[in-house]
């Protein structure tokens, strides 16, 4: 099962690039299949076709299609990165499970 991720920041550029690279490292190490699409924070309210959104800075924006939003700032600054990585992997594994159960 491929997990479809979206990484979003203000311009979809600087912090997105950093956080995307970190997420790739994490998921490669765990041998999880994934795709990552960059986006702007202004776009996340109406996103479709994704399983999980990681935002690089704090935001209260929610997704209208109930895609979960995680705040990935720790991957950018390094502060609290380990806790975030655990939380992130839990979420990714849950999504993997859900997808397996949906189409066996």
């Amino acid at each position, binding site marked *: 099962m491929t997990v479809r991720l979206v990484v979003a920041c203000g311009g979809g550029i*600087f912090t997105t*690039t950093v956080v995307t690279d970190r997420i790739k490292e994490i998921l490669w190490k765990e041998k999880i299949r994934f795709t990552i699409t960059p986006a702007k924070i202004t*776009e996340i309210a109406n996103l479709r076709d994704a399983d999980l959104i990681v935002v690089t*800075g*704090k*935001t209260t924006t929610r997704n209208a299609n109930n895609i979960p939003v995680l705040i990935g700032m720790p991957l950018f600054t*390094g*502060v609290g990165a380990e806790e975030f990585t655990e939380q992130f992997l839990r979420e990714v594994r849950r999504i993997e499970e859900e997808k397996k159960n949906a189409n066996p």
Partner: protein
Amino acid sequence: MQTLKLVLDLFGPSIIVPVVVFVLSLFLKVPRKQAFQGALYMGIGLTAFNIILGGLMSSLAPVVSEMVNNTGINLPTIDVGWPAAAMIVYANQIGMFYLVFGLAFDLVLFLTKWTDTFHPTDIWNYYQFVFWAAIVQLSTGSFWLGILAAMLMNLILLLIADWLAPSLQEYYGYDGVTSTCYAPVNGAPFAVLVKWVLMKLRLHEIKLNPEDLRNRFGFWGEPVSMGVIIGLAFAILAKWSNLGSVDTWAGVLKTAIVTGAVMAIYPAVSGLFVKGLIPISQTLNTRLRKGELKRKNFYIAIDPAVFFGEEATLTSGLVLIPIILALSILVPGNNTLPLADLPAMPFMVIGIIAVMRGNILSTVIAGALWYVLGNWANSDIAAVFTQAAVNVGVQIPAAGTMVTSWAIGVSPICWLVYKAFAAPATVRALTIAASFAVYLVVYFLFKRNRIAWQIAAGASREYLDRVS
């Protein structure tokens, strides 16, 4: 010196910039592979942007010149976005030189405790003021005057960063950081004044509902549709007298797609560009967080993207986009059609919103006023911006059409420095000395009244007590 110039000209910026970035990265202990990849991407981004800009200009410039000729809207300057300013900076020797020299200068300022902000982690955003230094060089013919101007703008920026730091930290909830990006923070001192007036008028007490506003202004947060609609509107105006023919409509629709394409392509290309300096920024950031510097209170400069998504920031930015568009047309003295930099609007209010403690109405009022001033500054330098762009190989196909980067040009503070340095030769020494004197006076006033100034910029006494 002559040989060096020959080598630089022969290889050109797309080779020289990566080499400089690679060497600088290794010197700052970036892992070799990351340093190499980053440097490579920077050269690629530089080249890709130049090609794309050429394509955009050849389709947009004629429409804009038609609009100017056929309607009363006199906006002959196209906002081609901040990547154009970055390209000009790195295609000029002053830009490459300041990457190394500015980093050293910043280290000296930090280690001597002249400033509390550690600037080099935000090395990517140096270009925002180095651009103004590049046009100082272009106007005066002097490389060293350009460097001196860059140093003064660097000093002013760090003063604002020190001043605003606790307010940003408290409001956005990130300890130990600040922003050293000109576009987001240079409106903050102005906002302090506006806030004082708004408090007297009791307007600062009015609270708007961000959620409601966001739903209403959500369209302005979708860059591609916004680009298409703006292109459509301006192309229809440009060809107003001839709307009966099918040919005209073909042209109108094509223009709309081109302006949509601007919005879609820019993030991708500028993403390549940024990659060159990310490893430096990240490596320095990690080294600082590990406590390599034995210093208690300091602020790490961080890319402003982390502030962008906060509710009031996002909302005020979106509300300001149509207001700025309207003001650009209605207020005399502006010559620029804002376009490529419009999606950056939430970035442009970060300093103001921190001063206003998230009050949307106050931020929109201060932002609108500030960017009217900014429009004048930007319009004043459109001609020299265009000259700088032509010098690095951008072709402008329609006579009378100019280009600028709105987010970089709308900086009244940099404009004042530019004016001081590019003043007529007879008074130049005086204006330059005066600009340094003003900086020093403000700097020492800030040092003496630090707490009061930081409170005026939005921080609370409780927060200042906690962090100091």
